[in-house]
Every structure is written in structure tokens, then in C-alpha cells.
């Protein structure tokens, strides 16, 4: 249970949060037309006759959009409705050519499911929490108004008009900004694993309507407000925090929260009222008569399920079973690119625990320094596997491995090649090591005395000196054994 509370003048308040996330489905074509969907195209260059709602034009569902929404539903273990239907949501606006949005109100494609967010003590999530998902339906996006093109007129860009969205509606199960943030991040990860949405919030591929209400802990739900189109995890959390405080202050000063739609202004970090319930549109939903009900057959559903990749939770469990630490498992599964990279590394023969440590510390550290990420890593999983293999089979030590990795980053060469070229191979030549040990013990007779006198911590000193003398190439295990012998 979250113990996140807003401390008001009159006591503590609990925050209740529900999110409606709009995720743009990754497809080449729109939901009901064949127009392209690429981001950043010149205005009105990706508009079909259907998207512009020319007379007599008809929508035809894009199978791939439906498939991606179904796969997404399966990824959150949701009920998939074999029979669903499209409805029209009627309202007038210049960015809505048809005068209605085709959506699914009465019979959504995907029913109830759930998303589990991991425990995060620091964020106030003491244990994993299951957030219910009410439904996922598919719908058309609207176009975009541009108000900065002309002094007295607004321009309309219809490139987004008709683009396929999934609306993923959570239950009001979240109780803190951190939980909401974790939910959005987890949802984004799942979408990206499934490949149904690129999760790019900056480009508007994913945005959230944030429903917030406050109540005394244990009371009935309070009246909620809905803040529209919030486009980053940070903003989602800021909206919740700000809106909850606003509501508490409002109630405590004798006011009442009105059900309304609000807009978030990131520059001022505040929300303002857009329209109240009284001004709410009557959308006159009714089944779209241009479209037949959507009926999914077994073959379609089987293909959807079989084409699902291993998902974050399953992957995390698998990594844990391989002995990888929970922290590393979380880090490696958070982004689909990292997980894919790591899996390729394992496939190339790397040992899981060592590989996980190496990726999360050495590789991520190096990438960080270079300002790169895994997708443009200068070292491939195969190259990394080669490096880790050299450590695992005792060819080089961990210390040398760091040097080799640096050289790989500089030159792009293979690990074995560098080790060979620079003579970095680890040695287990007992003769050479014994000779160095003899010199070191002779030169440090006083420390030898102290060690023999019980100061066992000095053992590390002798190891270090020996390794140094061997230029790091001595097999540490052999060094240990020989030192123990020599020190009697």
C-alpha cells in the first residue's frame, strides 16, 4: 500500500488516480485509410480522400492496427473480445473532418487486464503492485490546428487525421505520482516489447489523460478532474501532485471539486480548467453504420499470440532464475533494446551473471560517457561475448578485460585480437610468478613478519604487489595459491 498522502490543514488526504493512455499504433497506414503515418511530414501530405472526409468516402479497417491492439491486450493478459464494434463520437471541430471520431464506446476490442509495477522502495512503492486495466479500444486520431501561421486565421494539418490510436484505460488503482509514473513506464515498455507503439512521448506517440481525485483514506471516491494530453512521465507525475494539492486546498477552504476537463501548462507547471461537465459535449455515440462488427477468428488470435515476444515480466523472471540480481534484471528489462542486446549476448555464449554485471556497469558506463545508447553501441553483443569469454576461461583477468574493452572502443578491434597483439594474456606460469613472489617477500621482510604475526589483511598487499609485478597478467587464483604457500 502506498502511504503517499497530501497533508492538508485538516488532515491527510489520499490521492486516487486513473490514466487513459493514448498510444499511436505503429503501422504504415492509418486506421481506416492507406495514407502514411510518418512523423514530421510536411502538413497535409499524408491525407487520403477518406482522411479528408470527402463526400462518399468510406472507412475500411486496417487489419494490422487491429492485430497490434489485440497483441497488446494479450501482453497484459487482458480479455480479448472476439466481437467488437466501432462507434461514432460526434462533434464539430476543424481538425475533425468527418464531424465524428470513429472509436469504440459500447464494445471495445480488449476488456479487462492488468499491469504489474515493480517494487521501488525509494519511490514509496514497497512491493510490486497490480494496476487494473479496464479496457483497450482503438480509435482515430484527429488532425492538428496551427494557430501561428496567419494573423487572423488558423490552419489545419490533417496528417494525423485518422491515425490509429489505442486508448488504454486503467482502473482508478493508483495512489501516488510514483505509482502512476511507474505504470506509464511499464506500459510503455510493454508496448515497445510488443512493437505496437514506439512509445515516443515527445513526438506525441503516447500521451495520457490523467484522472485525479482526493479523499480521506478509506472514504468513497471524490469528484475527479481529467487533465488532457499530458505527454511525459514527469508531467504526469507533476499533474497529479499539483492537481491533488489544488483539490485539497479547494476542499479545505470550503469549495467543492467540479468534474471538469483541465489542461496542463508545463511552463507554469499548473493545470487550468478547459470545460466543465455542464459544457461537456453530447457526443451522440452510435454504432458506425459504415462498418461491420469486428469478428476475430481462431487463426487470427493464434497468430497474435504466437507472434508475441517474451515480455518484460517473463524476461525478468528468467534473468532472476539465471542468478542475475534483481537490480540488474530490472535495468536490463526496462527497455526492449537493452533486453534484446543482452539476450543476443547470452545467445553468443556469455555467462549470465558476469554478463549482466559487465553490461550494466562497464558497457552502460562507457555508452554514457560517449553519449550513446545501445542501439548505436560501438561494440556488438558478439564482440562483447568474445571479451567475456576470455575472462571466463582465464585467458585474461577482469582488470585486463577493462583495458581490452577500452581498446575495443577505441579501435573497434576484437578482444582476442587485442589480447594477442598487446600480449595481455594472463599467465599461470608458476615459475615466473614464484620468482616475482620471492623478490617481493624479500623486499618486504618487515611486512612478512607482521603477516606471520597475525596481520592477515596484509595478504591483499602481497597479491597487489605480485599482480603489479606481473603487469596484471597473472592468474589471480594462481597468485593466491602460490602466495599462501610462500607465506607458509
Amino acid at each position: 500500500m502506498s502511504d503517499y498522502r497530501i497533508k492538508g490543514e485538516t488532515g491527510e488526504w489520499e490521492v486516487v488516480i486513473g490514466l487513459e493512455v493514448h498510444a499511436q499504433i505503429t503501422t504504415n497506414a492509418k486506421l481506416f485509410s492507406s495514407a502514411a503515418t510518418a512523423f514530421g511530414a510536411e502538413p497535409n501530405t499524408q491525407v487520403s480522400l477518406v482522411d479528408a472526409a470527402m463526400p462518399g468516402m468510406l472507412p475500411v479497417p486496417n487489419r494490422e492496427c487491429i492485430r497490434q491492439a489485440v497483441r497488446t491486450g494479450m501482453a497484459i493478459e487482458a480479455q480479448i473480445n472476439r466481437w467488437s464494434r466501432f462507434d461514432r463520437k460526434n462533434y464539430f471541430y476543424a481538425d475533425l473532418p468527418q464531424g465524428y471520431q470513429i472509436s469504440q464506446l459500447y464494445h471495445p476490442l480488449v476488456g479487462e487486464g492488468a499491469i504489474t509495477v515493480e517494487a521501488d522502495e525509494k519511490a514509496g512503492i514497497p512491493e510490486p503492485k497490480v494496476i487494473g486495466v479496464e479496457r483497450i479500444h482503438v480509435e482515430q486520431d484527429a488532425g492538428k490546428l496551427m494557430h501561428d501561421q496567419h494573423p487572423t486565421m488558423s490552419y489545419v494539418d490533417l496528417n494525423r487525421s485518422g491515425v490509429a490510436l489505442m486508448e488504454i484505460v486503467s482502473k482508478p488503482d493508483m495512489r501516488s505520482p510514483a505509482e502512476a509514473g511507474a505504470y506509464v513506464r511499464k506500459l510503455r515498455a510493454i508496448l515497445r516489447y510488443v512493437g505496437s507503439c514506439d512509445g515516443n512521448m515527445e513526438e506525441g506517440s503516447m500521451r495520457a489523460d490523467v484522472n485525479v481525485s482526493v479523499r480521506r483514506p478509506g472514504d468513497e471516491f471524490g469528484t475527479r478532474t481529467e487533465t488532457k494530453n499530458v505527454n511525459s512521465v514527469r508531467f504526469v507525475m507533476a499533474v497529479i501532485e499539483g492537481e491533488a494539492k489544488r483539490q485539497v486546498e479547494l476542499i479545505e477552504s470550503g469549495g467543492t471539486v467540479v468534474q471538469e476537463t483541465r489542461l496542463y501548462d508545463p511552463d507554469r507547471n499548473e493545470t487550468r480548467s478547459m470545460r466543465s461537465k455542464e459544457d461537456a459535449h453530447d457526443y451522440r455515440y452510435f454504432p458506425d453504420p459504415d462498418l461491420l462488427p469486428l469478428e476475430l477468428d481462431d487463426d487470427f488470435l493464434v497468430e497474435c499470440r504466437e507472434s508475441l515476444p517474451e515480455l518484460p515480466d517473463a524476461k525478468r523472471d528468467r534473468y532472476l532464475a539465471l542468478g542475475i540480481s534483481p537490480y540488474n534484471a530490472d535495468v536490463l528489462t526496462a527497455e526492449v533494446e537493452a533486453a534484446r542486446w543482452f539476450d543476443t549476448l547470452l545467445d553468443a555464449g556469455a555467462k549470465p551473471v558476469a554478463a549482466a554485471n559487465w553490461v550494466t556497469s562497464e558497457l552502460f558506463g562507457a555508452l554514457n560517457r560517449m553519449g550513446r545508447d545501445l542501439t548505436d553501441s560501438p561494440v556488438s553483443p558478439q564482440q562483447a561475448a568474445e571479451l567475456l569469454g576470455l575472462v571466463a576461461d582465464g585467458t585474461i583477468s577482469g582488470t585486463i578485460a577493462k583495458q581490452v574493452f577500452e581498446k575495443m572502443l577505441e579501435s573497434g578491434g576484437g578482444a582476442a585480437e587485442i589480447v594477442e597483439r598487446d600480449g595481455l594474456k594472463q599467465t599461470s606460469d608458476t615459475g615466473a610468478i614464484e620468482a616475482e613472489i620471492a623478490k617481493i617477500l624479500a623486499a618486504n621482510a618487515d611486512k612478512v613478519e607482521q603477516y606471520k604475526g597475525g596481520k592477515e589483511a596484509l595478504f591483499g598487499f602481497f597479491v597487489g604487489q605480485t599482480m603489479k609485478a606481473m603487469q596484471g597478467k597473472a592468474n589471480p587464483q594462481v597468485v593466491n595459491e602460490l602466495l599462501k604457500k610462500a607465506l607458509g
Partner: protein
Amino acid sequence: MTELTNLTVAQIRDGHRAGDFSAVEVAEAFSANVAGAKALNAFIVETPEHALEAAKQADADRAAGTLKPLSGVPIGMKDLFCTDGVQTTAASHMLEGFIPRYESTVSQKLWDAGAGMLGKLNLDQFAMGSSNETSYFGNVISPWRRKDGGNAALAPGGSSGGSSTAIAARLCPAATGTDTGGSIRQPAAFTGISGIKPTYGRCSRWGIVAFASSLDQAGPMARDVRDCAIMLENMAGFDAKDATSLNLPVPDWEAALSSDLKGKTVGIPKEYRLEGIDPDIDAMWDAGIAMLKDAGAAVVEISLPHTKYALPAYYIIAPAEASSNLARYDGVRYGLRDLPAKNSSGGGAGLQDMYAATRAEGFGPEVKRRIMIGTYVLSAGFYDAYYTQAQKVRTLIARDFEQAFASCDVILAPTAPSAAFGLGEKMADPLAMYLNDVFAVPASLAGLPAMSVPAALNREGLPLGLQIIGKAFDEQSVLNAGLAIEERAGFNARAEKWW
């Protein structure tokens, strides 16, 4: 040359094929009739050049031995079908001057089959009306007149009133129509011609200006049953661009035409016997029953118990869909735009003012009435009482037919409760106008094929039509029963030329 315009589609096709005349001669003859019939106001746009071009191609194809099914046949195109490069208005001010850069699937199929276009035919605005009086471009006048010594102008029926008039007045041998609640059958009946609304989904709706999507269905209108079959074969077919299109092969309806109805059973719905109906209608119906018996059919009485709810359900569902379908006419992207200089309170006008002014100006009274009705029945608090109930009724009506078709192959009924009425007679009373669709809307609600064939003249000398309703996908039985009536009714009356 005038006799060429008396030929049917089949006669033109066969005569042209045989070399009796050229397609150019046919096109020119019909275009001359079109040009000479302005008084009927059947066309909104005349396109003799289109017809001529297709005719030249047809003559060339004949020489090359590459004739197509409709080579040499010029037709009229209801102005609800979008035609590439030719103004398409749906008879509205809203779309006045709108020239699509695309061709509707049905019209494209007809051009691909070799047909030429004589022009775009007048209709009720957005296909909403039963008399063609709601057209922004003026009403069509029926070529028919009562034999009462008067010269009262009569309604050609609606909404396909330009189509019915053009065919009846020999301005074209055939035309396209669309039927949402009788818009092919009722005008056909009013003007003594034939017309068939096929099973919902047979003809693609792509490129047809939408009225009520779940009901709209294109179909042919022509002088006789054979021509309807020929035309329909060249209009129907699966279209991936229409999600409600039927993915079925198009039968060879013409080849399978047969008026021998032995082994067939005709159902007579008792609920269609209306109290106080014009006795001429009942007499025609009885005569039709006798004709089908004569053709070998058995006749049984059937019951369609929910018939009386069909009209109210239709006038909820159709306006509901229309209110949404017509939302796209907003002045933003095409068609009429009326942006007032100032808003009602004297400030600068904005988007809402543009919507209001454009739609007030662009839609006629009947269209506005239906948008208002549709908006009302879909609004919060009324949706269940109206729209949901109407959909239930629709399901019950479809079930009525299903049960009835367990004991018969086709159903015979009048097409309309009266002959053509005078222009202006019903415009003041929308309900009386809507009642004209009483026999037509049940088949529309059930999506069934239905046709009207001319069966008799009433005592005023006006044509009356009989309606044949068939099972889904069984246009053939409908056409065959129509043919049996056509052969026996011997209907050869035509309007005397006065225009």
C-alpha cells in the same frame, strides 16, 4: 432518329452489336432529347460530350471486335454518385460547384462496361424526399399528367426523381438510382418504369454521397426487367473499399431470366392491406396475384407482424445516420463556405459562426429537419428510447421476413400506397410525405432485394407499380417474378410529350 430513343438497353446493345446503327447516333439522339426536355428539369448537369466520347469508343470497339457489355448504351447518372471531373451536388447548395477528383465504384464499373454518361440527374437533396421537391436545383416534373383535362404538374417520386423522369420521358434508356427507403422503387412506380434495389451490399457505396449508410443501396432504373438485370450486372460486385460490400460473385441475372414460376411460391403480406387505401391500388395488387398464379406460382398469405413499426423505425434510424453523415459538410475543406464578417454579438466571426452560417445556407429545410430529428434521437437521455428501440424493431422486421420466407420465395405488394401526387400537395405535411414510403421501407430495413415493375394505370391514367421483395442475395427470383408480371400486364403506356 427519334425511334432510337424508344429502344431499351438490350435493344441498343444488340442493335449496335448487329450494326443496325452506330453508338454515336444513339448518343446524339438521346442527348438531343435531353437538350429538348429542360422543362422537366431532370438533369442538373448535361454531359453530351461524355456520352459521345463513350459512343465513339463503342463504335471503335465494334470495329475492333472488342465490344463490352454496355458498349453504345448512354445512361443517366443520379447526382449522388461522385463523378471525376463532373460536378456532383447531391442536389444541394452545399455541394454546388463541387467537382470530385474521383469516380464512384458503381459509375466506374458502368464506364468500364462501355456505357456513356448523358448527364447528372436531379434528385431530392441528399436523397431525402419522396417527390424530388427538396432539390436545391428545383423540382423535377413528371412527364405524366392526369387524364382529367387539367395540367397539374405531378411528382416524379423521390428521391431518384430525375432518373425516373428521364427514363419515362425517353431522355435515357436507363439510369442509376439509390434506394434508402424506397428511392428507386417509388419513383419507378410513379413514372411507369422498372427499378430494383439489390440486396444491401451488392453495389459498392464507395463514392456515393451518403444519406443513411446502413440503408443506402444503389440500383438500376430502366424501362423493363431485362434492362434492370443488364444494368445491375454491371453495377454490382465486391469492393474492398466498402467494408459493407458483399464478397459474392455477381450472378448472370440476364441469362437466367425466366418468367416460368412453376414451383415458386408467392407470399402476400396481410399487414400490407391498409384500411382506406386507394381501391385502384388493391385492384392492381389482386391483378398481380392473378398474373403470378398464371405464371405457375403458388400463392400463400403471409404475416409480417411488425410492419406497422417499420416506418417509425426507419424515420429514426435514417435521420440518425444522416445527422452524422452530413456533419462533414462544415465549410472547412470543400463545398459551400459562409464565413460571416461578424458574429451575432458584433465581434469577429469564428469557427462556430462559420459552421452555423454555412450549414444554415447550404442545407434545405427537409435536410435540416432530418438532421434535427437524427440529432435528437441520438442525444443523451433519448438514445435508448429512440435509436435502441428502432434497432430492435429493425431486427424484428428482418426476422418477420426470415420467417415469411420459410413458406414463400418472393413477396408481392404494392410499391406505394398511391399513384403520383401533385407537386406541392404534400410539402406542407412531412408526415403525409413520409407515409408514401410505407410499403418500401420494410425491405430497406431488412436489406432485402426489392423491385418495382409497372402493372397498371389508375383511373386517372397514371401508372401504378407492383413491388416484389425477395430473399437476401436472390435478386434472380425477384427479377423473374417481375418479368412474369411485365409479360402479363402488357404495360406499354407512356407519357404523352408536352414538354
